[in-house]
């Protein structure tokens, strides 16, 4: 049974996160352009509003006011649904993630988590897999060659990398699993990372299994279709990729969902590998309220770091060739992830 307090927190959290994610994605686009500018010796957008901070609003208004073209040859129902399909997984994925330290309210333990699923990890994997449908539907419904290519590429790519991703998450699950603990629960995974080795190294899975972390990192880029893995929308080859035929708000949905996805994936990353809300020294803080607030802050900072990493990498690396992409996914990451999972399992078995 869920306590009343938990219910209130979940509802509030759901609402706040939903808005924050959407708005955050908008701001993210702004910073994407800003950082693109900086890395290239430019200023980036700096005209709309003070120092250009209202640029994302301008973009949004522009998208909203643009003519929404629906071509005659598209498969209309699917075509219209696709952007939504893309948006939904991005907006529900983070429901299973704790964004702060659990606390006690009116005697009930309350988790800063929308849904406290017992099998949160499975939830993550399941929802993340849905995202590919948005792309494939959009591409297919467009009834046009370039989007179709983009869609096919995206599906192949996402399916390929999901394997490695899943295996790296298995490492995490193995690290968490102890007798009597539900290792598939995300709260438990975070809780499992709260201790220290030798008294000062946090027991973050990042340090416990760097290989799995690395595999997950790469897969994170691939899953979100970000450079260097954005072959689904390689403009040099495919005009605009799967969303070539989209315009106005529908196109904006694709765009936005990509950014929401990035934030979400960063959150997943932080949760699974970088200790979630945990930060060294959290135990020393006496006040529960401060502890909770700082834990939320720590979580946010970690997420922001990974968001920044997305941008940083994007403006550093060139795009992979498709065969290289497949090669990397199947012949490099998959064996490494397998080995890592196996190694983790063996290590745990030996220790236990």
């Amino acid at each position, binding site marked *: 049974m869920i306590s009343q307090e938990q219910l209130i927190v979940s509802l509030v959290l759901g609402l706040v996160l939903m808005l924050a994610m959407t708005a955050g994605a908008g701001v993210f686009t702004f910073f994407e352009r800003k*950082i693109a500018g900086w*890395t290239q*010796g430019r*200023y980036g957008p700096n005209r709309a509003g003070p120092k250009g901070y209202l640029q994302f609003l301008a973009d949004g208004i522009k998208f909203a006011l643009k003519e929404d073209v629906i071509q005659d040859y598209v498969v209309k129902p699917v075509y219209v649904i696709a952007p939504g399909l893309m948006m939904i997984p991005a907006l529900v994925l983070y429901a299973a993630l704790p964004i702060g330290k659990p606390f006690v309210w009116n005697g009930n333990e309350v988790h800063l988590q929308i849904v406290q699923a017992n099998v949160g990890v499975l939830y993550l994997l399941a929802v993340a897999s849905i995202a590919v449908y948005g792309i494939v539907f959009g591409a297919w419904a467009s009834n046009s060659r370039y989007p179709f290519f983009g869609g096919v590429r995206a599906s192949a790519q996402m399916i390929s990398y999901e394997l490695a991703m899943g295996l790296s998450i298995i490492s995490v699950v193995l690290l968490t699993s102890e007798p009597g603990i539900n290792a598939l629960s995300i709260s438990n995974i975070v809780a499992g990372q709260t201790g220290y080795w030798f008294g000062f190294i946090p027991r973050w899975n990042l340090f416990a299994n760097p290989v799995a972390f690395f595999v997950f990192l790469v897969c994170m880029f691939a899953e979100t279709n970000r450079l260097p893995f954005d072959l689904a929308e390689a403009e040099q080859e495919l005009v605009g990729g799967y969303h070539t035929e989209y315009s106005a708000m529908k196109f904006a949905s694709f765009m936005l969902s990509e950014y929401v996805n990035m934030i979400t994936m960063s959150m997943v990353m932080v949760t699974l590998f970088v200790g979630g809300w945990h930060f060294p020294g959290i135990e020393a803080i006496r006040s529960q309220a401060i502890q909770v607030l700082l834990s939320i802050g720590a979580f946010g900072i970690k997420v922001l770091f990974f968001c920044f990493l997305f941008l940083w*990498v994007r*403006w550093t*690396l060139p795009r992979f060739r498709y065969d290289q992409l497949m090669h990397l996914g199947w012949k490099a990451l998959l064996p490494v992830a397998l080995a890592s999972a196996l190694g983790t399992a063996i290590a745990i078995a030996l220790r236990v």
Partner: protein
Amino acid sequence: MATINVQRPERLTLAERLYLPAILNGLRLTWRHIWGERVTLQYPEEERQFKRVYRGVHRLNKDDKGRVKCVACEMCAASCPAHCITIKATEVEWPERDKIPKIFEIDELKCIFCGYCVEACPEDAIHMTRHYHLIARSREDMIFGLDKLLAIYDETKEQEVLRGVDFGMTHARIPGKEAANPDEVQKLAYPVVGVVTKAETQRAQ
């Protein structure tokens, strides 16, 4: 059959094959750039300092009596590779000249700003200014007529602009000017527009 010996590159080392050092190196580079200097000019507030030989909008010069210097010889039109100059001459009763343009039009949209017209002009009547603000609301407005080209002269009278003598040939033949050193001519003939950073702009100001 001739044999060509080709030096194949050595096999990549493991580090190279992993790409990771290269990626990290790249990240380091972009990281440095993020905090590095900005090269963009904030256009309306800041303007680029062009060299004298920058080829911008044309102007038609006036003589010391404020009259159009052009004699409508159509040499510019003849030398124009874009065929963007239209001239019609008319007769005037001036003591020292009797031919001036009645119509002188440059289609700035067709113009490729090569500067041949300046070089071809025997009267030094057409120059290229350093103006690059070419704004109009219609194609017709971009066809600059006599009035507009003369008005540009009034605006840019003080500017030191690209003149016919800046091109090698003419420069070398003007007596009274020091014999042009070929390097100098070369430099003048091919305008080099350098990137002027904000710092440099400020220094210049």
